[in-house]
């Protein structure tokens, strides 16, 4: 686990980015039919009128976006555009650029997903640790099946149940959306409480489902740590229960738990996206859902690319942060 480790992880990041961009570029071109042609024919069908010769319109559009050039050239153009953060235009509400749409949705997702995942990870890990700790009263063990149930159900299904119970039946929370209707968002108390009020249910469903999974994972790790010799010596030293639990138990069980976080990031993000769909929460997930409905191909490509890149970057950052919590991993050649 030395400098070689860092270089290997960075190489992995680069490979992932290359693959993501390539996959993103190729898949739409593999499938039969031309997205633009479909979009135009769909427009024609819905608008009912006779709108001239579709094929001519398609040719003009393809020339405009360089789609008539040889594949390799298009690939290079795609990369060049990416460098300028230009993800092309949204087919659905042209001339909006994909990059701008994503930029608008990103903060909502980062806020909702980032916060609730961290909360779920923190609370879940501590509860899971307590569950396995012999010091905890026996009664707490009843929580295990509850956590099992929670971790079994996919995030967004929990979301549906919460919407029905807390929003429709008890009317405690709004049933969807990110902020009160018709409110211009400013940094004032009203908007902030509005946002929090709307984010409550989606966040709750991510947290509840997340807590179950993290608690069970941590419980398993604490059980294996309990068998270690340094716990026996810590007890032999007469240390207070709390210190053993935190500095000897949790602190060591945290290491594999962070690795699991890094490995399951993809799964966590996927779940959260679907929560946004259920709550029509204005984040990237909901944008993706709308883009799928409207067959807005370039928007879909942009969002998918962003997801892959952001997760790969986060995993790389976690790998860099890891040595801070595990002294055995050292970059400098000791």
């Amino acid at each position, binding site marked *: 686990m030395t400098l070689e480790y860092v270089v290997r992880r960075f190489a992995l990041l680069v490979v992932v980015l290359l693959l993501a961009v390539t996959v993103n570029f190729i898949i739409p071109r593999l499938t039969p039919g031309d997205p633009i042609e479909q979009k135009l024919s769909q427009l024609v069908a819905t608008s009912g009128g006779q709108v001239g010769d579709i094929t001519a319109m398609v040719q003009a559009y393809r020339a405009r976006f360089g789609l008539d050039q040889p594949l390799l050239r298009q690939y290079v153009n795609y990369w060049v555009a990416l460098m300028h953060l230009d993800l092309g235009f949204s087919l659905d509400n042209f001339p909006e650029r994909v990059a701008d749409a994503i930029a608008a949705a990103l903060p909502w997702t980062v806020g909702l997903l980032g916060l609730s995942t961290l909360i779920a990870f923190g609370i879940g890990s501590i509860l899971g640790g307590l569950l396995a700790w012999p010091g905890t009263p026996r009664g707490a063990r009843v929580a295990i099946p509850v956590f099992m149930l929670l971790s079994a159900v996919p995030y967004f299904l929990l979301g549906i149940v919460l919407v029905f119970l807390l929003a429709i039946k008890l009317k405690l929370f709004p049933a969807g959306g990110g902020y009160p209707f018709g409110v211009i968002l400013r940094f004032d108390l009203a908007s902030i409480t509005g946002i929090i009020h709307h984010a409550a249910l989606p966040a709750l469903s991510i947290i509840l489902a997340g807590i179950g999974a993290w608690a069970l994972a941590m419980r398993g790790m604490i059980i294996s740590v309990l068998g270690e*010799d*340094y716990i*026996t010596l810590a007890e032999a030293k*007469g240390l207070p229960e709390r210190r053993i639990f935190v500095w000897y138990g949790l*602190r*060591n069980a945290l290491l594999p738990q962070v690795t699991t976080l890094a490995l399951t990031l993809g799964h966590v993000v996927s779940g959260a996206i679907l929560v946004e769909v259920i709550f029509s929460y204005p984040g990237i997930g909901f944008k993706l859902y709308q883009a799928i409905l409207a067959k807005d191909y370039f928007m879909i490509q942009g969002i998918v690319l962003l997801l892959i890149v952001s997760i790969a970057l986060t995993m790389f950052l976690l790998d860099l942060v890891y040595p801070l*919590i595990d*002294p055995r991993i050292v970059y400098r050649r000791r």
Partner: protein
Amino acid sequence: MTGPVLSVEALRVAYHTPAGAVRAVDGVSFSLREGERFGLAGESGSGKSTTALALMRLIKAPGRIEGGRVLLGDTDLLALTDREMRRVRFAQISLVPQGAMNSLNPVLRIRDQLADTIAAHDTRVSGGDLDTRIGGLLEAVGLDRDVMWMHPHELSGGMKQRVCIAMAISLRPKVIVADEPTSALDVVVQRQVIETLGAAQRRLGASIILVGHDVGLMARFVDRIGVMYAGRLVEVGPVGDVIADPLHPYTQLLIASVPDLESKGVFKGISGLTPSLLSPPPGCPFHPRCPKVFERCPVDEPALREVKPGRWVSCHLY
């Protein structure tokens, strides 16, 4: 002659496994005088380590201390509440663990692991003079002061065991229990670590219980030795006498099977299988493998009796 520092009376420990109750320690009694080095020798499955851990009440499920008393001075450790026991641990009776390799918390610096031991019992000490005290402890076990800023993975096996010794003497306890402290170390480092333990113990005036299977090591270090077999003490006495003139047939075979540098190519072992602790043989547990077995042996269990001054044995021959 002041009374014994520690006296163990009829200690019993059993592990409740799905296959039944394994009687790991089945009525062990011995006493420890001040400053004395007492060796608890036995092969695997004899119950020696379980006895050591039971003294510190570190037996975990499915193990349970079933009975007996452990008197440190005049307090019975087995009767204390968990809170009271926690205060006694390392302050009165401390432990040098067997697997030094992973007995130190891998994510904490050596200083923090010594500091929390001291702070758990002596909350007045803090900051500067805590560091000087820790530095002194490390030097007392032959380590450089700045080892305290290192993490366990940066130390060799021998150095880690020395840190454990420093921990064990940090609160000046009356009794140190060393559970096979050097079985994982190479022979050269083993001697250095044992001599360090001996010097630290002598300077502290504490008594030591050395648990182990290496009879040679016992001969070089302890004053008195107790030999365990199938969860019971079968012989106790001054180490020189026991090795020169072993009384119990098992001790005789055990000492004979220890290879030495005299007789070459001649091997003496003990035939038969180690006894099952789930259903130990009736009467004397060694009778199925004992060359001197006679009709009484499989019938009733011999008690540990003092057959000669200072020489205890549990065998019907005497």
